[in-house]
């Protein structure tokens, strides 16, 4: 642990401020008070006991008084912990309800637009269709943003709720690629996969790992060309994404390499930060929440793996992660 982290742990005032509790209700502060009080009482009792040894009633009274004070302090500490637990429960409940309340109107919007676009309710003009599509796209973007925010919030509050199963990363990757095929085609990108033979299975949270691969694949496709350069007739060409899955020691190693925009050197250190979006990313895509890679990093680390990348501007990026074999 770095010195700064140790200092932060010891700095009771900043810890209490973080909880948003007054000092007299903050568990850390109360523990210190109780500690000092206990040490002081040991010495005082000894001194008083030695002085009034001839009058045991006074000694009993002192011990009684000290016990009562310690009891009161412990009671307050327990109560403050209860308050913290309640605050955390309220936060989870709030997120659960807010997600429902925010998403419901968006689902209505998307489904209503779908119904209009389908033409079942009457013929739609080409020009109208274009604007309905804008409506739909933006609704979907909002849904995605809320989903990402929820994932992040859940990661921060419930670190331990992963559901681990045995699965093949290769099968998962192939499945996700076939789902992304049409999307990749619209960006004129070819996806190649290379895997080692007889790869062992992984033990982890399948839906979480799926999210990571999906995010990395999505990024590789989206950030392959500068904005306005997206073509569907193959004019740009040569855009390729190469995925490799290998076994390295006791880990499975996954790598996704693109020959896209790349990340400027000075921005590379921020890439896994929450809400950070690279200058190139913003130029290529106005959409995006800046949460994808943050989610990837937290997820891989929660599943006992490592994640990293190397990138050169205008040449491309390679993102990799490792996950321990069962």
């Amino acid at each position, binding site marked *: 642990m770095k010195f700064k982290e140790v200092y932060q742990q010891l700095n009771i005032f900043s810890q209490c401020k973080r909880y948003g509790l007054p000092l007299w209700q903050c568990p850390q502060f109360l523990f210190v008070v109780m500690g000092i009080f206990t040490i002081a009482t040991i010495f005082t009792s000894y001194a008083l006991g030695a002085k009034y040894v001839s009058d045991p009633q006074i000694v009993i009274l002192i011990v009684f008084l000290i016990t009562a004070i310690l009891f009161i302090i412990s009671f307050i500490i327990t109560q403050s912990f209860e308050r913290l637990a309640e605050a955390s429960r309220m936060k989870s409940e709030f997120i*659960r*309800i807010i*997600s*429902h*309340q925010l*998403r*419901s*109107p*968006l*689902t*209505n919007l*998307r*489904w*209503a637009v*779908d*119904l209009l676009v389908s033409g*079942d*309710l009457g013929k739609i003009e080409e020009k109208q269709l274009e604007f309905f599509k804008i409506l739909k796209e933006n609704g979907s973007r909002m*849904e995605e943003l*809320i*989903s990402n925010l*929820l994932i992040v919030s859940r990661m921060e509050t419930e670190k331990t*709720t992963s*559901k681990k199963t045995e699965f093949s990363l290769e099968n998962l990757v192939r499945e996700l690629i076939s789902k992304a095929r049409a999307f990749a085609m619209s960006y004129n990108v070819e996806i190649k996969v290379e895997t080692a033979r007889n790869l062992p299975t992984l033990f982890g949270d399948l839906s979480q790992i799926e999210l990571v691969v999906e995010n990395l694949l999505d990024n590789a496709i989206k950030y392959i060309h500068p904005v306005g350069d997206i073509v569907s007739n193959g004019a740009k060409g040569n855009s390729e994404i190469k995925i490799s899955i290998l076994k390295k020691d006791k880990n499975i190693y996954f790598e996704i390499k693109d020959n896209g925009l790349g990340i400027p050197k000075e921005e590379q250190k921020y890439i896994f930060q929450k809400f950070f979006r690279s200058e190139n990313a913003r130029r290529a895509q106005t959409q995006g929440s800046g949460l994808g890679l943050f989610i990837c990093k937290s997820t891989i680390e929660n599943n006992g793996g490592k994640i990293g990348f190397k990138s050169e501007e205008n040449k491309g990026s390679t993102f990799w992660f490792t996950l321990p074999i069962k």
Partner: protein
Amino acid sequence: MKTILFIEDESSLQRTFGEFLRKANYDIISALDGEVGLKLAKEKKPDLILLDLVLPKINGFDVLKNLKEDGETKNIPVIVLTNLEGIEDVNKAIELGATTYLVKVKYSQEEVVKKIEKVLRE
């Protein structure tokens, strides 16, 4: 024609998805809260129930519990169609007897109809 009871408090979704289901050749009965939903389920005995979980008066979990405890309605398949997606919500609904659990935001209307068809076939 199969009858579906659609228990959903959002009237705009009732309107949109209700319309979609009608076009897919289903007879739709709408309920805007849990209490009416429960009453209609017992009266009309639909072939399938689409149930939201966050509902006024009686929430979706209690509606589900009630339906599965009543001999007359316990065999009607219930598809939960909601935007609550926590593991604890999914597990609770399945434990209470929901046939399947769909998170609205992850599905298109066509996909929901396909799920309905599948459940009705089974």
